[in-house]
Each structure stands twice: as structure tokens, then as C-alpha cells.
């Protein structure tokens, strides 16, 4: 195998290794006592975050971050909604109803 071919093969292997290490995961964040279960979260591109409401009143989740803005609407106790974060970046997440509820998600390879 010549040098360029060996380099290409190594890159392909690295890519597969990276994909295996960063297999998409689901992370559950609870909303209880008007707070997210953690103020910060670090995930990888492709990971899914599920927001579960454990309060007796409705919550919302939204982000106006340019890379991926979303609004999950409202949902009551016991229900959950999910978002898959495709792109790397820093996402500021809030509950629109209760603006003291803040979460920062860092998405990095």
C-alpha cells in the first residue's frame, strides 16, 4: 500500500472509531420544582435530550439559539418531549412559562 492509500485507510478507520465512540444517546432531563435537573449538560451531535415534567403544573422548553431554535409547547406532569441536537454549539434552553428555569447544553464532537 502506498503512502496516500495508507493515510486514507487510517482516516476511514478513525472515522469509524469516532462514530462508535459517539453513538447517539438519549439523555433525560427532568423538570421539577421549577428547575431543570442540571443547569449544564454536555452531549455529542446526534444525541437526543428528553425533557420530562415532574411538576404538578405545565412546563415548556424552548431555545432561540441560532444553530437550532425550537419550541416544545406545553406539557403536563408525567409527559416528556424530546429534541435531537444535530449541530455542535452552545444552546441556551429555558422554560418560557418559568424564566428562572435555565439550562445550557454544549454539543461537541
Amino acid at each position, binding site marked *: 500500500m502506498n503512502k496516500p492509500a495508507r493515510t486514507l485507510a487510517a482516516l476511514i478507520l478513525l472515522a469509524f472509531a469516532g462514530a462508535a465512540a459517539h453513538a447517539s444517546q438519549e439523555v433525560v432531563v427532568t423538570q421539577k420544582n421549577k428547575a431543570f435537573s442540571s443547569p449544564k449538560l454536555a452531549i455529542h451531535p446526534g444525541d437526543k435530550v428528553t425533557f420530562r415534567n415532574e411538576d404538578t*403544573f405545565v412546563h415548556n422548553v424552548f431555545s432561540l439559539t441560532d444553530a437550532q431554535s425550537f*419550541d416544545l409547547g406545553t406539557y403536563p406532569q408525567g409527559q416528556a418531549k424530546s429534541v435531537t441536537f444535530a449541530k455542535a454549539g452552545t444552546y441556551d434552553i429555558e422554560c418560557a*412559562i418559568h*424564566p428562572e428555569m435555565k439550562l445550557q447544553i454544549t454539543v461537541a464532537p
Partner: protein
Amino acid sequence: MRLHVRLLTVAAIALAGCAAGTAPSTGDTHASAGAHPADPLLRPAAVPFPADNPPNSARVTLGRALFFDPRLSGSEMISCATCHNPAMGWADGQPTAVGDGARRLGRATPTVLNTAYQPLQMWDGRKNSLEDQALGPIGSPAEMNMPLDKMVTQLAAIPGYRPMFEQAYPGEGISQATVAKAIASYERTIVSTESPFDRWREGDRNAVADDVKRGFAVFNGKGRCALCHQGFNFTDNGFHNIGLRSLQGEGDEGRFAHRKIKVLKGAFKTPTLRDVALTAPYMHNGAYRTLEEVIDHYDRGGDDKSNLSPNIQPLGLSAQEKKDLVAFMKSLTGAPMAVEVPHLPAS
């Protein structure tokens, strides 16, 4: 404004003898009279304040003078206290506020009481602190109609104010920032006094009648009130569309004007229920004259269902349950507050 806040005891904020220009101790948990920090429904022992504006007596004294001074308005006829009248629950008794030129404004005057504990100010939460809020009505052409640069010039021309500013904020001068900080410092002294509800929570079984106790149970259960009215200040500091029928020509989108999230369309901040019996009319648009009308609104499950909060549902309250709820809310009225009316510096 830095988000970091420290805590100051209620007693320390009101301390008249505090040395001018120095901050009282911070971050402690000394209990003030009647406060009971272990019970989240009782008045907390401390009032939060931002790290760059710790209250002291000179700042409170200056803020009190500015709060009562009509020369902060373009007409020199309107002070903060004109609308936030301490004899009317720090509100004005009007359905909606009255501004410059006696023109009617679009929203009701909210009480100043316990705003020190609220992270966002105004019905739509567009102000991030009391300091941020303080200059808003002064500079608004519809409200006090005083250009803020002119306000600074006029205050600087009043000899008596110069030493007051120097004592309160040494070396900072008379500026928009120091005016805002002083008014905010005074507003942080406007906090709840002990109510019959507090005495009941503290163990005095005879502090309230049985209708109050029943009403409190309805409040937390069938009435669904505590879904939004939470904690000692009986507010979640949140924003909800409660299904108010828009008054003619109102068209007020509330917090949605500042946060384009669907749930916020027609949503307004949950007001405190402390001293609520003193602050009629009710709702952001003054739609209801009495607490009974307010309860009827919630019992119907609201009127305008177009973006109604799921927290609001028809309740099926009995006449007795409604009366009990009103009795409970009246038990949140604190003892009359001692308010020192300042002698304003002469022009």
C-alpha cells in the same frame, strides 16, 4: 446588571442607624421579627439585592426622596408614589394607570410590594431588575414623561440632593445609574408585614377563622390556585395566559411582545397575593373590581380560550368554597406599614 445576588436581612435594610456610605453585612441568615425561613410560605428572613448595589441607610433615604419627588416627571406633578401609593397597597386603585396629561394607560399599576423578590419586573417581565425598571416609567413619554438626561440636570440643580447622592454613592455623582440604584434600594424596603396567615402558619391556631383554613385548602386543591401562586409571595414569577377577555381595543400580547414563544401570547406575570385585598381592581387590565369577580373568572375556566394556559380549567366551586377562598386571600393582608414621608430638598 450582575445576576449574582446577596442576601440582606429585612431588619438590616430598614436599619435607620446604619452608617452612611457603608454596606451592612451580607450573606447572613439572621431572622427578622416574625420571619420563618424554614417554611416556604412565610416571609423570608432576607431580601436579595445585587452585588453592585448593597442597600444602606443613605441609599434608602435618597431613594425614598426620589420615590416621592414629583420633580422626576416632566409635568413636575407625578412621582413614583402617585401611582405606587403606599396608602393603596403601593398601587393606585385604578383599572389601568393614569400617566402624563392624565391620559389613561393600557395596563394596571402593579404593586411595588415584594418586587424585591421578583427576578423580572413589569407585567411582561421586560425589565431584569429593580434598577433596570426604575427609570422606565420616568423616561416613558406616556408615563412620567421626563427625558432622563434632563432628569439628571434638574436633580443636579437642587442643592439638597448633592450631599444625599454623595453620601449614598460616594464619587459616583448624580446620574441615571445612581438614581436607579437609589430608587431600587428604597423599593427593597417595601416588603410584607406580618399577616394573620403568617401568625397561623407560625402556630397560632386562633389567628384566622375556619373559613380561612378551608379557603387555604381550596387554594391548594380544587381551586388549582397554587399551580401558579406559589411560595411566600404567592407567585411563581412566571407568565400565563389566564383567558382574560380582551377589553375593547386592548390587543395586548403581554410577554409575547418580548419573547416570541407561542405559550407567551397573551401571557402576563403572576402577581403576588400578599396584600391583595388592598390592590383592587385586579388583572393586568383591571378587568375585575373584586376578588369575588376574580374567583368567578377562574371558576369559569377563563373566557378567551385561544391560547389558554392548561393550568386554567373550569373548577366547579361551590358558593361556600368561593367565599372561603376570598377569606383566605384577605388573611394575607399584612399589618399597616410604617412609611416615612420625606421632606424633599428645596429647589
